[in-house]
C-alpha cells in the first residue's frame, strides 16, 4: 500500500496551510452551507461554493480529473435525490441539496489531496491530547495508527500462507478453509508484535 495515500505533492497555498486550519475551514464551509438552508442566500452561495471548490483544483495543481472522479460515485445518489425531491414538488431543494453535496465532497477532496497522511495523523495525535484525562494516550494513538499501516501487508502474507497450506495437501484454497487460519495467523502475529513492543519499551 502506498503510504502517501491520496496525497498529491505540490506547493500551492492549500498545500502549505496546516492540516488543522484546512479541516477547520472545511467544517466552517459545510456548516454555513447547511445553516443557510433554503433561504435565497443558500441558493446563491451553494452553487458558488461548489464552483469555487472546483476551480481550486486546477489552481492547486490537482487538475480536473480528480474532482470528476470524486463526483462520479455520487452521481447515482444525485440522480435519486433530484428525481425524488422534484417529484415531491420541491425542485429548489433538489437543486440545493445536490450542490451542497457536490460542494462538500469537492472541499473535502481538496483537504485530502493537499495534506500528507502523516500531517493528518499528527493532527489526530494532537487532537487526542485533551482526551488524556479519559485514559486516552496520544502516543499510543499514533503508535496504533502506524502499526496498522505496517500490518496491512501482513494480511496478504497470512492469506498467502494459508493458501500454501491448502495447496500442500492437494486442496484448492477454498475460502472456508483459509479464513480461520488467516485470522489465527494474524492473532499470533499480533501477539509476537506485542511482545516485541514490550521488549522495546513501547507499551
Amino acid at each position: 500500500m502506498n503510504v502517501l495515500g491520496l496525497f498529491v505533492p505540490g506547493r500551492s497555498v492549500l498545500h502549505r496551510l496546516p492540516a488543522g486550519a484546512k479541516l477547520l475551514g472545511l467544517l466552517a464551509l459545510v456548516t454555513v452551507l447547511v445553516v443557510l438552508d433554503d433561504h435565497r442566500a443558500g441558493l446563491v452561495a451553494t452553487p458558488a461554493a461548489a464552483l469555487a471548490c472546483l476551480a481550486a483544483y486546477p489552481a492547486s495543481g490537482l487538475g480536473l480529473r480528480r474532482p470528476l472522479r470524486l463526483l462520479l460515485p455520487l452521481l447515482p445518489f444525485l440522480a435519486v435525490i433530484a428525481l425524488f425531491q422534484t417529484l415531491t414538488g420541491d425542485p429548489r431543494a433538489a437543486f440545493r441539496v445536490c450542490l451542497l453535496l457536490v460542494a462538500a465532497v469537492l472541499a473535502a477532496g481538496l483537504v485530502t489531496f493537499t495534506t500528507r497522511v502523516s500531517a493528518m495523523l499528527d493532527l489526530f495525535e494532537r487532537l487526542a491530547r485533551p482526551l488524556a484525562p479519559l485514559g486516552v494516550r496520544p502516543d499510543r494513538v499514533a503508535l496504533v495508527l502506524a502499526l496498522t499501516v505496517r500490518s496491512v501487508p501482513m494480511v496478504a502474507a497470512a492469506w498467502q500462507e494459508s493458501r500454501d497450506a491448502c495447496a500442500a495437501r492437494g486442496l484448492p484454497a477454498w475460502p472456508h478453509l483459509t479464513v480461520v487460519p488467516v485470522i489465527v495467523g494474524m492473532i499470533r502475529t499480533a501477539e509476537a508484535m506485542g511482545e516485541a513492543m514490550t521488549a522495546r519499551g513501547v507499551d
Partner: protein
Amino acid sequence: MAESPAQAVRYRGLTARDLALVAVFAALLAALSMPFAIPVGPVPITLQTLGVMLAPAILGAKRGTLSILTFLALTLAGLPLLPGGRGGIEPFLGPTGGYLLGWVVGALVIGLLTQTLMRRYRFWGGFLINIVGGIGAIYLVGVPWSALYLGDTLLAGFIGAGVFLPGDLAKAVLAAAIAAAVHRAYPVPPAGRRVTGDRDAENAAGPDAESEHPRA
C-alpha cells in the same frame, strides 16, 4: 501478594499485545474493504461489514471498537482504504457516511453483547448478536443519515435495508461461523492487564498480562 478469592478478577487498560491486535484487525478490515464492491445503487455492497462484525466478536468490545475507529482514522487521514480506492474526508460527508459511523456503534454493540451474554462463543448466539449490532445498529445510524440527503426516510430505508439486507445477513452468518471457529482454534485472552482489588497486585501484574491467561 496472596489473592483472596473474594477479589473479583478484572482487566484494566490495554497491553502492547492489545494494541497490536487492534492494529491487525484494523488492517484486516482494510483488506476486506479494498478488493471489491458490488455497486448496487448509491451505496456498494462490500465485505466491510464482515470485518466490522469479526473484530468485536473475536476481540470484545474495547479492542473491537478501537480497531474500527483506527481503520476510520486512517481512511479519514487520506489512505485509499475504501472500495474504489476512495479515502479522505469526503466519504464521511457523503450520503453513505452514516454507515461508517454506524460501524463504530455496531462494533460496540456486538462487543458488549458478546462479552455479557456469552461465556463461550456460540454460533447461534453470535449470529443473533451480529444481526442486532452488525445490521440493526449500523442501519439505525446509516439509514437516517442517508434520509437526510434523500429527504425521505422510507426511500433511504429501502435503499439501505432492501439492498443490503440479504448480503448483510449472509455476512452475519459468516462472521458468527468464523468467530466460533477462531474461538475454538485459538482463543484470544481478555483485553488489558489483570487487576485485583489489591493496589500492589495491580502494579505487579502489570508487565505480564500475557502469561496470566493460559490458553486452553
